[in-house]
């Protein structure tokens, strides 16, 4: 039973179901929440689900991290380094974009005094 859980195919199935359920919870939050900051929390949750999905699907059984140390002297049997490099920079940029979105919300609150997204309809006819 323990060997069944360590297979690559089983771990891929667990990753798909888990990260897509996190994505769906965030999507439900975007649909139904009324306060601005909670909508941004839901967006960040959807982002995190995509990162987990991306790195989880590149995992293979008994492959190690792509770094040399005292025990590992050659670059064989290692996990792919390219998706890790891409996700690394994306996490930092996600933080900067979150700060930008919050600064828009802060300025809007200073102008009109509401942080309820159903009342932000100045562009409607």
């Amino acid at each position, binding site marked *: 039973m323990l060997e069944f859980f360590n297979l690559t195919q089983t771990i*891929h199935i667990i990753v798909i179901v888990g990260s897509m359920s996190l*994505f769906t919870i965030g999507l439900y939050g975007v649909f139904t929440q009324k306060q601005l900051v909670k909508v941004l929390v839901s967006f960040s949750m959807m982002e995190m689900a995509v990162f987990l999905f991306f790195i989880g*699907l590149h995992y293979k059984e008994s492959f190690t991290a792509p*770094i040399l140390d005292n025990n590992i002297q050659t*670059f064989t049997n290692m996990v792919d380094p390219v998706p890790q490099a891409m996700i690394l920079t994306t996490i930092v940029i996600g933080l900067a974009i979150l700060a930008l979105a919050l600064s828009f919300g802060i300025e809007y609150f200073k102008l009109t005094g509401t942080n309820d997204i159903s009342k932000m309809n100045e562009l409607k006819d």
Partner: protein
Amino acid sequence: MNLKKDLRIKHIFLSLLSSILMISIVSILFNIKTDLHQSVGELFLAINMETASANAVTTVVTFFRGLDTLGEVTVLFLATTGISLMLSSAKRVHDKVIEQESFILNIGSKLLLSVIVLFGVYIIVHGHLSPGGGFQGGVVIASAFLLLFLANPNMNLNHSILTFGESISGVSYVLVGLIGLFKLNILFGNFLPHSISQIGDLISGGIIPIIYIIVGIKVGSEITVIIEYFIKREAQNA
């Protein structure tokens, strides 16, 4: 009561819609073959030994995909410019006593500042030998300044040093790429080659630690500026 019943039906309908969406996405994803036979990453691992850097992810970020990192640094710069334009009416927080300034937090943050900055510099410089690098170390340095702001929100940072550091690092990133172009006819070429036997030393890996130090300075100063704008904003009372 009618409004509450409408909201309840809407929530149930939306949760049903989300679960149907999730089941369809998962059933599509189950049929995808997830084992790739030959990908770019395996080729990168095979020639990683020649660059004399022990961390393959660092080599991919700075050397094999150096142009992509230049784009990410540009996006960071644009986001910081947008934030400073939006919150440009930041005034000093008024000197009214909101709460008692904590003595322990004041003294403790000044003691811990040097240790945290040293730790951040260690993470940046050893990026090619162990997990770490410019992005991680830059954010650690910014968190040291966040600790100082928590103790005393009226603290003034020297904006000229921050601006100088940010612009110098941005210019030198492009300069490093152009020097590689002129010397070796490759953009971001390795113009300081080290031999393979030096793998594992501190001074090895060619231009890889140089690029990561530049990225670390830029990320650290930008996130410090972002946090300072958020804290110094005058709080709006009702």
